[in-house]
C-alpha cells in the first residue's frame, strides 16, 4: 500500500494530481490518498478549495453570457436554406447591391470615405454585378506580365476552398485598379489595389467599413491602397487582408 507522506515533496506530488481529484477522475485508492493528505495538510486543502472556487467562478462567467436573441430561429432558417444560392437569387442580390450602391446605404463622413467607397464600387461592378468569367477559358489570371506574380503570391494565402475566379486590371471613374476575385460558390471576395494619388491617405493601420452586406478592410503602403471587400463577416474579411498583407507589401515594394 502506498504511504501517504507529508512535507514539500508530498505536497508537490498531491498537487500534480489535484486537477484530476477535483474532476473526480482518480481511481478510488488515489482518491483516498488525497483525502488522507488533506486531513493533514492545510495548504493543499486551501489549494483545492481555491481551484474549485476558480472553476465555479469560471463556469458562472461563461454560462451567464446570453446567447443572441433569435439565434435558434436563425439556425433553423439556415437549415432550411438550399445548399447553394440559386442563380435567380444571385441575380436579385446583385440588383440589391447595385441599388444600395446607387442610393448610398452607407454615408462616409470622413475624408477617407471616398477612398473606401471606390473599392466597394469596384467590387460591386466587377465581382457582383458582372460576375467574373475569364475571357480565356481555363486561365483566370488575366493580369499583364509584370503583375501576374501577384495572383500567384496571393493565392498562397487565400482560404483553401476559395478559387481564383478572375485577376484583371480594370478602370472605374478614370482610376485604374488591379482586381482579383475569389469565390467558394457561396461567397465572393475581392482584393483591390490602386495607386495613391497626390495627398490621398487612409491613415495609419487597417480601416474597416460596411455597406449593406459587404465588408471592407483596407490599408495603405507608400504608393498603394490595398482593400479586401467581401460578403464574409467583418472579422473574417479583415483576417484575409491581414493574411494577404506580407505578400502584397513584398510584391508592391518591388513593383
Amino acid at each position, binding site marked *: 500500500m502506498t504511504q501517504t507522506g507529508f512535507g*514539500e515533496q508530498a*505536497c508537490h506530488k498531491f498537487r*500534480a494530481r489535484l*486537477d*484530476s481529484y477535483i*474532476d473526480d*477522475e482518480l481511481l478510488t485508492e488515489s482518491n483516498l490518498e488525497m483525502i488522507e493528505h488533506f486531513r493533514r495538510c492545510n*495548504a493543499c486543502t*486551501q*489549494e483545492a*478549495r*481555491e*481551484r474549485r*472556487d*476558480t*472553476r465555479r*467562478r*469560471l*463556469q*458562472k*462567467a*461563461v*454560462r*451567464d*453570457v446570453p*446567447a*443572441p436573441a433569435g*439565434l*435558434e430561429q*436563425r*439556425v*433553423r432558417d*439556415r*437549415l*432550411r*436554406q*438550399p*445548399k447553394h444560392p440559386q442563380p435567380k437569387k444571385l441575380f436579385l442580390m446583385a440588383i440589391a447591391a447595385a441599388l444600395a450602391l446607387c442610393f448610398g446605404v452607407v454615408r462616409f463622413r470622413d475624408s477617407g470615405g471616398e477612398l473606401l467607397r471606390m473599392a466597394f464600387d469596384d467590387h460591386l461592378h466587377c465581382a457582383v454585378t458582372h460576375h467574373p468569367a475569364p475571357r480565356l477559358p481555363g486561365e483566370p489570371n488575366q493580369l499583364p506580365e509584370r503583375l501576374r506574380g501577384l495572383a500567384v503570391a496571393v493565392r498562397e*494565402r487565400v*482560404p*483553401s*476552398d476559395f478559387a481564383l475566379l478572375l485577376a484583371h486590371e480594370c478602370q472605374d471613374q478614370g482610376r485604374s485598379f488591379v482586381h482579383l476575385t475569389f469565390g467558394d460558390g457561396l461567397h465572393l471576395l475581392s482584393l483591390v489595389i490602386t495607386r495613391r494619388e497626390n495627398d490621398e491617405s487612409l491613415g495609419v493601420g487597417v480601416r474597416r467599413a460596411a455597406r449593406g452586406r459587404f465588408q471592407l478592410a483596407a490599408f495603405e503602403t507608400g504608393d498603394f491602397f490595398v482593400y479586401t471587400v467581401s460578403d464574409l*463577416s*467583418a*472579422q*473574417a474579411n479583415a*483576417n*484575409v487582408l491581414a*493574411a494577404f498583407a506580407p505578400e502584397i507589401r513584398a510584391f508592391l515594394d518591388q513593383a
Partner: protein
Amino acid sequence: MADWTGDGHPPFAPTSETRCDQSLEERFETEAMPHLNDLFRTALRMTGERCQAEDVLQEVYLQAWRSFDRFEAGTNCRAWLYKILFHCVSHQRRKWFRFPLLKENEEFLESNLVQPETVAQEITDGDILAALDKIPSEFRSVVLLVDVEEFAYKEVAEILSIPIGTVMSRLSRGRGLLRKNLAELARTYGIGKSLQKDRRI
C-alpha cells in the same frame, strides 16, 4: 416540416430512415437543438467574436443535420455536437489565420508555472472571461470542455481527437495560466499580495 418545398436540405422532413418510434426530425429536435446555447457560448469563447461564433454554430448544426441519419440513437449527442464544433473552429482558424498550432514549449510552460490564488470577489465575470480569452486556444478548449461543460477527460479526448494524457496536461496548464492571469489582475486591484507571500510552500 411537412410543408417543406425547397430544393435544399429538407431539415425536418419525415424520413423512412427513422429509428425507433421517432422521426429523424423529432430526434434532431429533442437531441441536438437543446444544446444550441451551450455550443454558442463555447464557440464565442473560442472565436472571440459573436458574429463568428454564430457563423460557426450555424455550420455546426448544418453539418450535424446532414449527417444526423448516421448518428447512433442513444449515444452522446452533446459530445458529438462538440466534436463537430471544434472541427469547425479548427477549420475556421486554418482557413483565416493559418497560424501554426501552439507547440507545447517547455520553456514557455516553465515560465508560466504559478502559485495559485483564490479568485477575489472584486474580480468580475468580465475579468474572468478576459483572463480566459488570453489563454492559448489549445488550453482554453480543454478548460472550457472540462470546467464549464463538465465533460469527462475521456469524452474531451474524443471530442478533440487527442490522447487523454494530453487532455490532462493541457487542462493543468490551462488552469494554471487562468489562475496566473487572474492573480495578475488581482494585484492590479491591490488584492492578494500578502496572501501570496504567506502561501509559498
